[in-house]
């Protein structure tokens, strides 16, 4: 795979190998989203979609981050996902990419990449947790500010963000366990 390592020079310096693993992880995240989110999509609780999908998506995101390891890896994975989300609704990429910007900025300042377990855990949890309030914020913006009362019910938003934090943390922990197994088998750099 050294040839693949050498094949850098793409967007933000990512190589072919990075794009391939990001695409496979993005496909897994899409499958999880398309299977689980319709089951709860009609329940009007902020963050309910993240609650059901985050624990599973976090596992595959963690594996992709461990494999790529470079800064902006979440942007790579969720950038690909966002192109598909754009087909479903142009609103979804708005809050997904907002959460990506928040997480990547935090990661660039604090960790400068995803090489360590701590960097991956913190970033994955930050990403999914920040998506809940950002989704509600974008939702209220798109609905013409009529949903401000819902935004004012901050305890609900805080509660659901806390649930997403715990669930995505669990997902990231399981992802790290899988990463350790892959590393033992020589499948992880």
């Amino acid at each position, binding site marked *: 795979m050294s040839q693949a390592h050498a094949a850098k020079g793409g967007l933000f310096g990512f190589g072919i190998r990075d794009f391939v693993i990001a695409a496979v992880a993005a496909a897994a995240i899409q499958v999880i989203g398309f299977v689980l989110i319709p089951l709860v999509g009609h329940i009007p609780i902020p963050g309910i979609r993240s609650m059901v999908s985050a624990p599973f998506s976090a596992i595959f995101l963690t*594996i992709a981050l461990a494999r790529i390891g470079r800064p902006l890896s979440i942007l790579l994975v969720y950038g690909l996902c966002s192109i598909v989300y754009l087909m479903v609704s142009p609103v979804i990429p708005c809050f997904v990419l907002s959460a990506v910007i928040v997480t990547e900025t935090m990661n660039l300042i604090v960790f400068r990449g995803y090489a360590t377990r701590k960097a991956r855990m913190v970033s994955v949890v930050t990403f999914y947790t920040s998506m809940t309030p950002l989704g509600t914020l974008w939702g209220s913006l798109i609905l013409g500010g009529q949903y401000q009362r819902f935004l004012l019910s901050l305890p609900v938003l805080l509660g659901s963000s806390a649930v997403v934090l715990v669930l995505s943390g669990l997902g990231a922990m399981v992802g790290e366990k899988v990463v350790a197994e892959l590393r033992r088998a020589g499948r992880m750099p």
Partner: protein
Amino acid sequence: MNQGWLSRVDPLVKIVSAACWVAAGVVFQGTALLLLAAGALLLLAWSGAHRRPLILLWAFSGMAMLGATHLLIGGTVQEASHTMLRLFVLGAASLPLILTTDPAVLLRSLRRLPLPPGVLLGLSIMWRSLPMLKRELEALVFSARLDGERIGVGNPRRFYRRVLVPLSFGMTGFADEMTLALVTRGIALDGGGRVLKPASPGWADAGFGLFTLLFLGAAAWTTWL
């Protein structure tokens, strides 16, 4: 995939149109929003969404629940109906793209855009990974059944051992093989995007564009003139 006349519309035209419908759904109110909802109803019919009653029932019950929540938290009936109409327009805007577009045609259309080669490559691989993931999952479930074990998230330990770990191995194996295949074929990311010849717009593109312009123009006219 529905094979109506919308399937002949260029996916890029559908993407631009969906963005315009969403923007209009956010900006306009009152009579203009009603006009947009009428247009959205036509989009829904042309996309063949009415042939999927269960999904429609699911979507409309979700909208009704959202409207009811709006009333419960102190909103007026008018505000609640506005929110529901807006959601209907936002939801229907993407139906032509979701229900009447062949993914291969969509990918081919996206390749006409001057996107970075890595993004196009990533999209193609993402699309090709879906059957691989499905095949792997089916094989894992079958193998568990042979051993007399039921797979489900109700038993996390078993789910981890029988699904997650083997699936992750399958994913990384697929990614390695795909990378090797791409590298040995000399596919590089810095060679510039392969921009295809632009397609000439057909009558379906023109008709769909005109339909969008007509409804958006009417909504703007009722609001600003």
